[in-house]
């Protein structure tokens, strides 16, 4: 009946832990993370790679996990929002989002924080243009982005690594 083929085994690491996944090859990484790994911090906003709510890192590259078939992540290292804090100690960028009003409804926040952290890993002291461009793939309907920019600036101000 199903047009989905047979499930395959995919081995990868998620937030530093080795996992073995059984999934249909074209299953979206987004669904596998949420449903099999229980990592519901990765959100679905549009399902077509426009909004960035499902952003995760694969081997250090920021991707929209709704556009990644799970077969592509065999052997890869995946990072999600759940891997950002060190236990109860928030990453600097997470704290900055709280302090500076970067999160309102919170649905874009996990993806936005991953995008911000990815940006700061590339540009520890980004210019305004770099911040705007670095976050351009992540849509936020609540903040008008201003407080997100301020959060990013605040996170790098002390010159410490963002995460």
């Amino acid at each position, binding site marked *: 009946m199903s047009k989905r083929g047979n499930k395959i085994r995919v081995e990868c690491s998620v937030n530093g832990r080795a996992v073995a996944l059984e999934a249909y090859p074209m299953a979206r990484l987004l669904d596998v993370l949420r449903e099999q790994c229980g990592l519901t911090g990765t959100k*679905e906003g549009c399902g077509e790679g426009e909004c960035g709510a499902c952003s995760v890192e694969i081997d250090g590259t920021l991707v929209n996990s709704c556009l990644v078939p799970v077969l592509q992540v065999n052997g890869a290292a995946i990072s999600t929002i759940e891997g950002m804090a060190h236990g109860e100690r928030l990453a600097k960028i997470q704290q900055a989002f709280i302090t500076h009003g970067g999160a309102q409804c919170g649905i874009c926040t996990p993806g936005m924080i991953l995008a911000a952290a990815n940006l700061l890993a590339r540009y520890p002291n980004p210019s305004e243009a770099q911040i705007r461009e670095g976050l351009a793939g992540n849509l936020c309907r609540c903040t008008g982005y201003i407080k997100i920019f301020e959060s990013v600036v605040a996170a790098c101000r002390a010159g410490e690594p963002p995460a």
Partner: protein
Amino acid sequence: MKQTRIIGTSVPRKEGRAKVTGRAQYVDDIALPGMIHGATVRNSVARGRILGIHFEGEIPWKEFTIVTAKDIPGKNCIALLIEDQPCLADGVVNHPEEPVVLLAHPDKYLLEEARRAVRIEIEPLPGVFTIDDSLARKQIIWGKDNIFKSFLVEKGDVDSAWASAARIVEGEYETGAQEQLYIEPQGMIAQANAAEGVTVWGSLQCPYYAHKALVGVFGLPMDRIRVVQTETGGGFGGKEEYPSMIACHAALLAWKSGKPVKLIYDRAEDMAATTKRHPSRTRHRTAVAADGKLLAMEIDFTLDGGAYQTLSPVVLSRGTIHAAGPYNCANVRIRSRAVATNAPPHGAFRGFGAPQSVFALERHLDRVAQAIGLEPDEFRRRNFIREGQTLAVSQPVREKVDMPRLMDHAFELSRYREKRRRFDAENSASEIKKGIGFASFLHGAGFTGSGEEHLASEVAAEATREGRVHIMAASTEMGQGTNTIFSQIAAEALGLDPHQIEILQPDTAAVPNSGPTVASRTAMIVGKLVESAAHSLQQKLIQGGFLKPGYPAEDFPEACRRYIQKTGPLEAFIKYEHPTDLHWDDHNYRGDAYGAYAWAVYVAEVSVDTRTAEVRVDDFVAVQEVGKVINPVLAAGQIEGGVAQGIGFALYENVVWHEGRMVNGQMTNYIMPTSMDVPPIRVHFEEIPYARGPAGAKGIGELPLDGTAPAIANAVAHATGREITRLPITAEALLEMLEAHV
């Protein structure tokens, strides 16, 4: 201004930590044991008779739970103002995307295949798709005359004013639909059976609206229906009324299947089927004296309501009352109506009718100013309303209002005058034309007229033995900051820290009905009830001798423990009491429309590339008087976010219709502002405390949607010299105007 300790400080967002760690539980993050998935089968034509429903394809239909109108145990309608919208279409359909069949199955991939394999056989009937066709009654598609509601506001004598006018200026303005585009699509989880009743969990603004709809659909007593709000990823009005529909659908599937059902819309379904901002058309006829004084304003305001009435009467009401703005004019007539078309019903969206009528007014007044040879700001200054004068609905302004001061401040921050002159001088030499424009406006907080009196909102508070205070209200957090400001208000009143205050999850089984989370009413109206509830707890402790006035915070827990031990539960229950000096005449649409208004002047600076007709907003200044600001970071965030939505409304967000159907219902072709599109947004608050708001606060949420688009439109008109009369000002539309000879 009274000194405050917690109010006026940027206390961090209460649920911030859960949100930045990904732990916050939105509806799609929740799984119940044995839960299956639900889907909605929708009709594709605008209007017709249902001839049959066919279950086709190689689908194991026996495995599916299938619900149609005949499975509804109670009434087949989503109860709101009236009961005209069916829960599931039965016999006829009146708009595309109308729900007809519900399906549920454990495998959501198979479910999607099944959804596509249901064929709804329809005999099409001619539809109505424009305001003009609806008014002309080309087809009667609703009631006797296609009119959901109409209003007439009259002040003075408009008809006798025309003769003495130095100039009479007419204009017609239109705005398109706008999608709320909260990033979390709509969804619900339901559990329902005869023994336990119905429980739904979901993304929504108004738990008691869904509760009312479920009571009707299931025909169950109120205490057998329970609605719980989960973390909500944005609403903006889009989750005001439509969630009631999804709640009923999920609950019907759960009722029939005997299993918990999760019904989550994907983005395409959400954009196609749920509500949008009402498209509008406004006609103005304005008489001015030689000295620039407004003599008469005649305004004709029409909203396209879509196929069912839903909230159109109240959206129309707010749009009507705001249509004449913060100006003093002795003679005003506003006629308005909301009409039916065969499109999905339009609904609540931040601003609620006012962004449409304020756009028309503020664009029109720039044109009136030009006609009489005054600068647009000088013309406004000569007509700004002052304390003691009356608004269009004959409401005397009792607040201290100083529009000229707001304008001065906004102009100073934006360097309006200098830039206006400079752009005028420099534009001719450049293919990039610069413009600067503004809008001055007001926004009423709370339900209109006698609305708050009828709502009679309730809030409860309870202190625990440990000295923690629980606030119980149905007011929802959807990103705008309800949890945080309620905890600040209660903490301020009780002399505690905000972390000692807990805001209970909105759950109709556990919290009283504090009304819907809409209409810029949460801070001002419900916040005041929270303050009163906190004061009531405090009074009980002080009057019982458990605390001394001026007590230190550390004495509070011990006092609570002793009170509860000796007297029993320490709780307070507060009900809204309408101020006796506010009067509203619903029949003549006259009186105190709102307890308080926020007042504002917004300035936009734009560049128009005349080769591509692309408009960029280069700078934005938002100056407003909103009473006491409870939390500066959250308040500024409200304004900035609203301005960004207003930029989308002004320039990008274009719903393309074909026979009642949105044909660009994706984020790839319905364009909202990104981080690349927003200018610096400089927000400034003037604070004049409002005696009836908590610590002096007024409403703020909707305000920024009213003034942003007209400020931008006026700036584009300044840059290009073209008559901008329609939103959105897409590059395509502007290019046509630039190429036309003037």
